[in-house]
């Protein structure tokens, strides 16, 4: 009986809309596409092979490669028709390097061949002569007077420099009863998604380009490709199927411009590009390494009084979103605390290292390590309980945060800390620590976290949703923000089903296609479900009203309140009459069956002058919050840290789907533990040391503890159904929580991440040496 099925409901753990197709291997990813007659394109990146990160291109010998059977073309910068420059905010990255290479992964040629094997052979045969140039491999060197320039037009290699000042700034440190300080270093982290950068492109008979790619930003891709290649963007169609992971690494051009360039040269044959894991680690974007100098001051009673910190981000050879990453890190550098006097200085510096860009918890994960480590150091200095100190200073609605923003939206950090305070892992910590086995030490560490949602000021943060009643009476949602696996498309299905009272079998979602959906920004910045969800609510509400109205026409009912949408139909209970949605659809014209909804995210334009030097993306008004607890065991013989248990309390506003909420928290904590314990995509002289997942370890199931996720539901009045984005916030906690737990366990503090066994062992060894000395 149709009535027995229940409509999807927001707040319930509905099965993910993509679960079955993904479990059965049917969900089509871009990487699954092999159109008839497909050609292969691949980039020649000579820097790694020649061991040169910065150098002038003297000659590109393509003849040997072109002579190979199966090779169609070898293209170089002179074959690029447009500006040959890509980039999201700053267009500084060539599609194919012209003049010089600025890092080891810079592509100098694009080969098109009929098979993958021939492609690889041809790539090896392209001869490139490069004259090495003096290079800069770290921000200090890059900032020094007379340092070699990565970009001629960028004096001092500075991509961005900005400052925040609230109250009396750094001078107020002098008034503090206790001041603590530290210098922190965070590593480069790889996104480590399963599906490497890839796509397929084709030039259609009408001359337009169709590109299906693993991308987080199909609409922006059109603009980037258009700019780089001189193709009007309306002649470019981008399709973004489900992604096998993104985490920020597919926000911005990876394969897009190269593929489009290839497709302009194949006479209409489709062409595919798929990076290997090696290429991903060489040329893919990555998390910025960062150095943070931090000073935090408080009054005797524990009130935070002043903070002064300097953050220097290494953005590598090109801008990507480096300036914005820095800005967001700075905006969070004071922590989710009330601090009357703030001075934060940031620099984002070009070097000849691989390109750093967007990654989950965008600049914030770095800053969180510093401020949450400092909070524990401060607690120790004041003789305060680390949880109490955090509770006492936690932001509340109406407070001004460290970026000078008065908080008018939901602020749940206090509630998250309460959940941790009451958790048995916290209340029972003394007994647990005391039960440490011989040769081991146990400790419990905390971290307060927060993460802004949305693009921030000076960028239009908007979405346009389309929902359709199909001819056969089902609901079709036109998703416009890519689903990288975080489940936003499923959330949209759930929201549409909830509003239109339809069950899972009657709601479908179509993944982003610039020819079918509407510009709605990127899948990023914890904005995806928030911004598009709000637009979708508007579209669904309109469609609902329209369906009720049409049903009223059909059933001769003038009282809307007596008409009810239920799965598959509209019923008029008083007269026991009904009309199936399929029937309603047949009474409507195609354009009547579609509704559009729009939404523009709230913005803050006034921070009373707190910030200077920011270009875009500062400040934000909506934040998710969290409080994390890690229980760790340190092995004194090896220095290895085991994360034994983990608790994450998260304020993401109202929960749309408890299971998907938990999945985001679990994933964020897992990726955060990798950042805390082992991940480090290090370089030497600009050369990437890890080449694959054997040399770049990420945590596996055995490395991860049970992760308890607790929701602290605030009500975000601007959010769809009261929610806020939580894609990033959980990523921030593990590094400081584990560092604090290690300090609690062994009395040693690590200032440099990841906290590898070797570094822990060194710190233990040093501490033991000092203890011996002072005993002697």
């Amino acid at each position, binding site marked *: 009986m149709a009535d027995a099925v229940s409509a999807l409901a927001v707040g319930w753990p509905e099965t993910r809309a993509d679960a079955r197709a993904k479990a059965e291997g049917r969900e089509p990813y871009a990487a699954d596409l092999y159109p008839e007659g497909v050609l292969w394109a691949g980039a020649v990146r000579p820097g790694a092979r020649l061991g040169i990160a910065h150098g002038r291109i003297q000659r590109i010998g393509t003849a040997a490669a072109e002579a190979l059977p199966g090779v169609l073309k070898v293209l170089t910068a002179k074959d690029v028709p447009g500006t040959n420059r890509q980039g999201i905010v700053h267009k500084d990255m060539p599609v194919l390097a012209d003049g010089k290479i600025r890092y080891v992964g810079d592509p100098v040629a694009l080969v098109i061949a009929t098979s993958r094997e021939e492609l690889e052979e041809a790539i090896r045969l392209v001869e490139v002569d490069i004259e090495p140039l003096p290079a800069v491999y770290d921000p200090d060197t890059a900032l020094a007077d007379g340092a070699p320039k990565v970009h001629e037009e960028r004096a001092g290699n500075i991509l961005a420099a900005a400052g925040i000042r609230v109250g009396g700034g750094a001078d107020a440190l002098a008034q503090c009863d206790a001041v603590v300080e530290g210098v922190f270093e965070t590593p480069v982290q790889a996104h480590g998604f399963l599906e490497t950068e890839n796509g397929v492109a084709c030039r259609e008979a009408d001359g337009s380009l169709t590109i299906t790619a693993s991308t987080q930003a199909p609409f922006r891709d059109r603009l980037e490709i258009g700019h780089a290649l001189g193709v009007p963007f309306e002649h470019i169609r981008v399709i973004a199927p489900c992604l096998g992971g993104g985490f920020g690494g597919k926000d911005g051009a990876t394969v897009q411009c190269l593929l489009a360039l290839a497709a302009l040269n194949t006479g209409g044959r489709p062409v595919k590009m798929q990076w290997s894991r090696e290429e991903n680690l060489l040329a893919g974007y990555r998390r910025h390494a960062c150095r943070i100098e931090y000073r935090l001051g408080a009054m005797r009673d524990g009130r935070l009084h002043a903070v002064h910190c300097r953050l220097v981000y290494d953005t590598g050879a090109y801008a990507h979103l480096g300036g914005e990453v820095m800005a967001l890190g700075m905006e969070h550098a004071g922590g989710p605390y009330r601090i009357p006097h703030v001075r934060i200085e940031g620099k984002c510096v070009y070097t000849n290292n691989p390109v750093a860009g967007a990654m989950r918890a965008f600049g914030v994960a770095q800053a969180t390590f510093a401020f949450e480590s400092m909070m524990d150091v401060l607690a120790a200095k004041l003789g305060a309980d680390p949880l109490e100190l955090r509770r006492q200073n936690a932001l509340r609605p109406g407070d001004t945060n460290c970026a000078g923003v008065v908080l008018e939206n939901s602020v749940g950090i206090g509630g998250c800390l309460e959940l941790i305070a009451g958790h048995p892992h916290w209340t029972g910590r003394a007994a647990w620590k005391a039960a440490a*086995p*011989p*040769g*081991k030490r146990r400790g419990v560490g905390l971290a307060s976290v927060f993460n802004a949602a949305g693009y921030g000021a000076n960028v239009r943060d908007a979405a346009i949703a389309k929902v359709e009643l199909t001819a056969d009476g089902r609901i079709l949602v036109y998703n416009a923000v890519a689903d990288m696996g975080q489940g936003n498309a499923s959330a949209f299905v759930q929201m549409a089903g909830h509003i239109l009272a339809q069950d899972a079998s009657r709601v479908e979602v179509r993944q982003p296609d610039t020819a079918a959906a509407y510009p709605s920004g990127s899948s990023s910045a914890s904005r995806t479900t928030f911004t598009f969800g709000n637009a979708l609510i508007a579209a669904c509400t309109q469609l609902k009203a329209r369906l009720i109205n049409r049903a009223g026409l059909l059933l001769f009912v003038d009282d809307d309140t007596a008409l009810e949408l239920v799965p598959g139909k509209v019923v008029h209970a008083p007269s026991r009459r009904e009309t199936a949605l399929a029937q309603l659809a047949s009474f409507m014209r195609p354009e009547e069956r579609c509704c559009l909804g729009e939404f523009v995210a709230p913005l803050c334009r006034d921070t009373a002058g707190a910030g200077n030097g920011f270009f875009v993306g500062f400040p934000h008004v909506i934040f998710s919050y969290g409080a994390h607890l890690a229980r760790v065991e340190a*092995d004194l*013989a*090896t*220095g*290895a840290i085991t994360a034994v248990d983990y608790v994450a309390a998260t304020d993401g506003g109202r929960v749309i789907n408890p299971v998907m909420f938990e999945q985001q928290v679990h994933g964020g904590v897992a990726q955060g533990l990798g950042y805390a314990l*082992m991940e480090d995509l*290090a370089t030497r002289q600009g050369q990437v*040391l*890890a*080449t694959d997942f*054997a*040399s770049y*370890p*990420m*945590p*596996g*199931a*055995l*490395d991860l503890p049970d992760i308890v996720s607790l929701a602290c539901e605030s009500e975000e009045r601007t959010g769809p159904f009261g929610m806020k984005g939580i894609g990033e916030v959980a990523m921030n906690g593990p590094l400081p929580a584990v560092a604090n737990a290690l300090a609690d366990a062994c009395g040693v503090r690590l200032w440099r991440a990841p906290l*590898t*066994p*070797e570094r822990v*062992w*060194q710190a233990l*060894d040093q501490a033991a040496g000092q203890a011996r000395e002072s005993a002697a």
Partner: protein
Amino acid sequence: MTRFHAAHSLTEALALLHEETDTRPMAGGTDILVRMRRSPPAVPLTLIGIEGVPELQGIREEPSWLSIGAATPFAAIAASPLIAAHAPLLQDAARAVGAPAIRNMATLGGNLCTASPAGDSLPPLYVLDAEVELASKAGRRRMAVSDFILGPGETQLEPGEILCRVLVPHAPPIARCQFEKVGRRRSLAIAVASFAGLLRVDGAGRIAGARFAFGSVGPAAVTVPEAEALLRGQLAVQPDPAAVERAVLAVCATVRPIDDLRASASYRRALAGNLLRRFLSPPSSPGLNAATGHASHG
């Protein structure tokens, strides 16, 4: 193009190895295929699949030894009651290899022929005095595992020769043994350092024979006879701490670790000493089992 022939018997495998040039045996392929992808061979290779050769499979108890077919995958070694009874050290090492999918493919013979300083089976086989049996068209020969392995990637295997069996000789009972592996994570990790140790005791509970071998701290598994000798006569449950420290020092002085992406030489050296110290600490301490890391996660 790489070619592949599956052999169905040892005779066929040896014949195929001879018939063509540039042939290589392939068992699980978990090393050779990775290597070929990383650095494609200059001339195309012909791979002779030996994982289906019955003579190279299986674990059998024979009068003088436990015989393990070279193409036996680690998953089988990890699950075998015979191995549990006769060579628990090797079983713990087998459980520490890779992850389940790798253990289903990766073979003991492949691990030895790869001769990586980090090969997990090496330290246990050294302390168990295991031997290898090699076959070629010319016949068979036997030698100690520690003689077979010459250095990183180097063995006594001649072209056309196949490693058939690994033989673990029956020996006096072992009072206590432990395998421990330290990697950068708990699965799919190459050892930063590994340790296999065993103690044999006399009627009075004194150490009659101690054997240790360390992985990833030298060109092959490293044994330290001097440290072993230092412990002779000590009470197994509570050796004299001074003797333990002397043995630890001997280990630290003997190992020859290198710096690489995973760890520094100085850390590895200290680790080798610490693993020995932990092994020699009272066995009743509950920390020991947990400390074996993923050997106990199998």
